């Protein structure tokens, strides 16, 4: 592949991100601008921004890579990523927005009136955020390596620096514009090469996918075949689906976006737009996995399946056209790393700042430090730690690594949010017990697979995709402990229910001034 076009595309995307970020600097003046764009973002712009933020390295490169290497079962990843927003819409979108909190820790404190649960949530937000940031850096390293041959640490460093520049400069207001632009950039970058490849495929007489490792067998194309070394594929399918559907609502960068909606109605409409935008993107990604089997049955030595998207155009058409399309895909992939990393950094930094740094900064400077400065310090911390970890950490497939973050989110924040919104008898002790048990089990399972690899048979299946047992256990523990401690149900639960479920059109006398 000629690397010049690719470098131009990557530089252009980075410059665009930093440029729109700087433009946002002139627009964002207050702390509220910084965190939530002063809550004045229209549903369509916000939906583009959510889509832009959500389509990460896992979506852009990882899904095609997994379908390429493991076959039909991996089609559940894009389905789960999309259905996650339906679950979020139906269960918590409007009430979450009406709660008027910035982050999950804010929601937990408002709903349960307990600073200790707030701190527990803060730790989980930071943990999930860092777990999700890791694959973004790995993906960037991989993409830059494929395009230019640069060592893996360079790509991650570029992403870290550009994200820091734009986040530190503009905060949420600028990030909203950047993300919205990046959704359309990513959609263009994935769909134009897809149409060209479709033309090439049709003109070449629709060659069939080739699977070298199983000549004659059809395991790759069949669901539940266990192709690619997946033990117990039926369990894996259901457990992954559960993790993706319930985990979306617990991802820190997803939740923080909902506070930029003006009200609960807008939150619902935004979410419904997001589902359409995601669907438009995800119909293209599996095609790359299939065409990878057509044109690249054998990957070049030493390259990970996650790079198949970037290698495909040049393999299909070894001309300038192929190089230009590969460059477009490389640019889109960088847009994916940058936007997801920005969103995660904003939310992790917000929590780090509010719950850990600001109280300390306040004590050191006697209240002289501006809150925006604290946020900037937090952003630096929030992105450098996972970058450091990505250099040290073992390499897992991008979409699998993201799947682990979903599993942790589904086993901790999902029960807290769902029961918090709909169940009056949720007690402080019950919520804390659920977060503790769910978080511990999911993190243990995840860290075991990441550190020691996947064991064979049932233990491997249960550990590598734990949601099917950790989520029910968390719900059960939260409910049973809450029922056992009715005296620890917070006093203001009834008032909170009015706040969460009261329609926007309802004017309560206090706000009418009567």
């Amino acid at each position, binding site marked *: 592949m000629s690397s010049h076009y690719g470098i131009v595309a990557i530089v252009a995307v980075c410059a665009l991100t930093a440029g729109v970020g700087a433009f946002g600097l002139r627009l964002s003046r207050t702390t509220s601008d910084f965190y939530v764009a002063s809550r004045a973002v229209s549903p369509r712009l916000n939906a583009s921004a959510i889509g832009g933020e959500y389509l990460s390295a896992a979506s852009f490169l990882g899904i095609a890579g997994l379908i390429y290497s493991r076959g039909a079962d991996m089609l559940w990843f894009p389905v789960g990523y999309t259905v996650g927003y*339906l679950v979020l819409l*139906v269960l918590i979108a*409007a009430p979450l927005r009406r709660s008027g909190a910035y982050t999950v820790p804010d929601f937990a404190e408002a709903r349960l009136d307990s600073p200790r649960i707030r701190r527990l949530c803060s730790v989980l937000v930071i943990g999930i955020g860092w777990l999700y940031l890791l694959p973004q850096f790995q993906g960037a390293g991989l993409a830059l390596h494929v395009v230019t041959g640069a060592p893996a640490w360079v790509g991650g460093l570029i992403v870290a620096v550009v994200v820091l520049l734009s986040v530190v400069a503009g905060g949420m207001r600028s990030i909203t514009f950047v993300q919205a632009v990046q959704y359309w950039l990513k959609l263009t970058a994935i769909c134009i090469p897809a149409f060209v490849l479709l033309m090439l495929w049709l003109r070449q007489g629709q060659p069939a996918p080739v699977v070298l490792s199983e000549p004659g067998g059809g395991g790759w194309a069949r669901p539940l075949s266990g192709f690619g070394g997946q033990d117990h594929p039926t369990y894996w399918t259901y457990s992954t689906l559960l993790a993706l559907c319930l985990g979306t609502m617990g991802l820190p960068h997803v939740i923080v976006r909902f506070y930029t909606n003006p009200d609960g109605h807008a939150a619902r409409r935004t979410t419904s737009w997001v589902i359409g935008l995601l669907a438009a993107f*995800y119909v293209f990604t599996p095609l790359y996995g299939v065409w990878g089997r057509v044109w690249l049955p054998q990957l070049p030595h030493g390259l990970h399946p996650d790079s198949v998207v970037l290698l495909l155009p040049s393999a299909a058409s070894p001309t300038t056209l192929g190089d230009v399309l590969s460059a477009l895909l490389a640019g889109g992939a960088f847009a994916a790393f940058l936007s997801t990393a920005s969103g995660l950094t904003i939310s992790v930094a917000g929590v780090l700042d509010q719950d850990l740094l600001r109280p300390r900064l306040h004590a050191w400077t006697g209240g002289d430090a501006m809150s925006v400065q604290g946020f900037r310090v937090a952003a630096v911390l929030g992105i450098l730690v996972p970058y450091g970890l990505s250099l040290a950490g073992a390499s897992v497939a991008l979409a699998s690594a993201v799947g682990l973050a979903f599993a942790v989110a589904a086993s901790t924040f999902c029960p807290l949010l769902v029961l918090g919104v709909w169940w009056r008898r949720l007690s402080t002790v019950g919520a804390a017990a659920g977060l503790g048990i769910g978080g511990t089990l999911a993190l243990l399972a995840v860290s075991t697979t990441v550190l020691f690899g996947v064991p064979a048979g049932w233990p491997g299946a249960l550990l590598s995709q734990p949601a099917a047992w950790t989520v029910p256990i968390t719900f059960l523990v939260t409910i049973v402990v809450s029922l056992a401690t009715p005296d620890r149900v917070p006093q203001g639960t009834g008032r909170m229910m009015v706040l969460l479920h009261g*329609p926007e059109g*309802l004017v309560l*006398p206090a706000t009418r001034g009567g």
Partner: protein
Amino acid sequence: MPVRATEPPDVPRRVRVTSPRRNAVVRGPQRPVTTDIREQTGLGELYMRSLVRAQLRLSLTVLAATAVVLCGLPLAFLLVPATQTVHVWRIPLPWLVLGAAVYPVVLAAARYYVRQAERLEREFVALVERQ
């Protein structure tokens, strides 16, 4: 007040105008249901609980329908192995369903939910304001 010596004879006598239902029970100031909702009285609780229950029923219905469709797919692949290999328009059925056909269904479920949830809220507001 100046005292007049003589009343003009053509001035009509003062008449007291009163309500014909002077014996009716006097009602206190109107108390809107919204006050009950804000003050968490038994009545307000009742209204809010009915709204939350209606919303929850809608959410669970949409979720259950989605779950039946999604969880039914692997089950169908498992129980009827022919579905794994049958081709529609030369594409294997599972690829067609999971790669494209699920998305319009999910989108339709989302649109349905948003419309119904907004309708429930409009009806609730109308009910409360009417009281």
